[in-house]
């Protein structure tokens, strides 16, 4: 076993352990923190694969953004110190059997599959990535990039409508008050 393999297995164990802890712990805040470590482990995997840019994005977006968002929403909505109710044992058994079957199936599939190896390296130049994101040519991703911006716009409009509380006063009076202020 080479050092590369050992490092891989270390990272993989770390990701799996923290992932399992994230779903089994009964305090929701701890669960969020374990998720944070799990995502950092995934970032480490990207570093291991030499995909530095994706690793940086993983840390910036997931670790820096999404987990912080989750923690915020836990603080705003849940009593983070309390323990969650214990799931009933039948559910635990069924869930673990299902995940074991899934694991076994995937293992079998991977063993049966002959993967082609390639000597191509990642093109890790960030300038190339940036150009691809905005290019409309054969290897460009301008369209999905723009479509995602439409998605975000729609999602924001939807969120605002849901979150806005219906004001008891009719809207016209509300406007006047703002104008006075």
């Amino acid at each position, binding site marked *: 076993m080479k050092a590369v393999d050992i490092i891989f297995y270390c990272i993989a164990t770390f990701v799996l352990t923290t992932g399992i802890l994230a779903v089994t712990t009964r305090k929701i805040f701890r669960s969020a923190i374990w998720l944070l470590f799990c995502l950092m482990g995934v970032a480490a995997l990207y570093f291991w694969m030499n995909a530095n840019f994706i690793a940086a994005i993983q840390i910036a977006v997931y670790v820096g953004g999404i987990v912080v968002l989750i923690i915020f929403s836990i603080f705003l909505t849940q009593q983070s110190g309390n323990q969650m109710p214990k799931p009933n044992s039948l559910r635990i058994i069924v869930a673990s059997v299902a995940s074991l079957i899934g694991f076994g199936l995937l293992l079998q*599939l991977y063993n049966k*599959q002959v993967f082609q190896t390639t000597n191509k390296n990642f093109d890790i130049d960030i300038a190339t990535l940036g150009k691809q994101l905005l290019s*409309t040519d054969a290897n460009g*991703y301008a369209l*999905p990039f723009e*479509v995602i911006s*439409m998605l975000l716009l729609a999602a924001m409009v*939807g969120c*605002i409508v849901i979150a806005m509380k*219906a004001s008891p006063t009719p809207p016209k009076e509300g406007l006047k008050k703002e104008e006075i202020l």
Partner: protein
Amino acid sequence: MPENFFILFKQELWLVAIIFFLLIIKLKTKQPAVTTLLNRINVLLLLNLISGFFFNEEGRLFGKMFVTNHLYVFEKNILNLAALLISLQSTKWLENHKHIIEFYVLLLSSLLGMFLMISAANLLMLYVGLELSTIPLAAAANFDLHKKISGEGAMKLIISSAFSSTILLLGISFLYGCTGTLDFSVINNLLQQQPLHIAAFLLFFVGLLFKVSAVPFHLWTADVYEGSPVAITSFLSVASKAAAMFAILNVLNKMVQPLFITWHTVLIWVALATIIIGNLFAIRQQNLKRLLAFSSVSQVGFMLLAASANSAVSNASIIYFILIYVFSNLAVFGVISLVSAALQKETITEYQSFYTNNKFLSWCLCIGFFSLAGVPPTAGFFGKLFLLMSAAQGITFVILTIAALNMVISMYYYLRVVKTVFAKNENIGMEKIAIPVYNKIALLICVIGILLTGVLSGAYSYIISLQ
């Protein structure tokens, strides 16, 4: 950028233009009156629909991300028509709603996502389109803001769609791992009958089956349909289903031909389960929206059965059926939305002696249900006939018989509503409901569509000629 960019991409550009136009109106301090606003929006939607019939070309854009041809344009026209009809039907509900513009922004964003999903030639585009078509709808499902059941429906929709997207993404990542590409045609060349390829395809396909709510992935349907406002329910049951079905046809034809043996079997079993379970659950529903939810589940089963045949004829008959389905379902939903907006009544028993005071609405409801049940001479009969005939190429007679028998079962619960509506009872009977002009136009279009698309054979041969 090619010279004909604005022609190839026009339907999507139209939608984006309308969305931004609405947003700008929203940002202005002086808001137009509600009726003016609704008039303007409906005219815009009409123009949007009309623009789809002229100056169409075939081609591809953005590398190979976006493909368009006459068939895709026709499919988008069906969706545009559905959006216009739904918009006309929901004017009465919208007049009392505070967030009209937001409603349309969400609806049209979702429509844009569907267009991109249909035109996708790349898994990435397909996925992004799929998300764009579901997430705004989940927000819109919550538009009955004061009703708890509406929020519950939206929550169920967003969670189940997130769950299905995860499975879909897992499938996509396996497909990418097996083939090293996201392009449909390249994947089609590289796929083989190998265990991992099949598993990847199945995961991917499960995600799509979730969207058309095929059994066993149908559990979210009834609750979401019941909770959402009628406008969104009809959009979900018509446009969303149709778009997902178009995407499934596209994927099956363009991407996974090497795995035909696998998906042929899968589709037959899923279709049978969908037809049977959809029908059985529909029998015991009391709420009309729930009834239509399960009826749409079983209709999807028939479409999937035809899709298993994998031929040009079966594709054409599915698209033809969807066109009819749009008309028939919207005829029914048009009446329901009017009744729901005026009297807040949605259960079947409340429709007793509906005919006494509402003759026109009752006939629309009746023709719509006849078409859904497949009673000749309505178009629904021809739609089902073509579906089963094209499906018959690849399946045994036992399966065909089961499907045909299920059409008989479905007649029971459709005609039960018709019977309730027409049964005479002097004491009870819904009061007369005023029909606004827009609703009348929409209902008339639906009824004429149901009667004509069946009798005139032009529609079907037109679809065949497009392929």
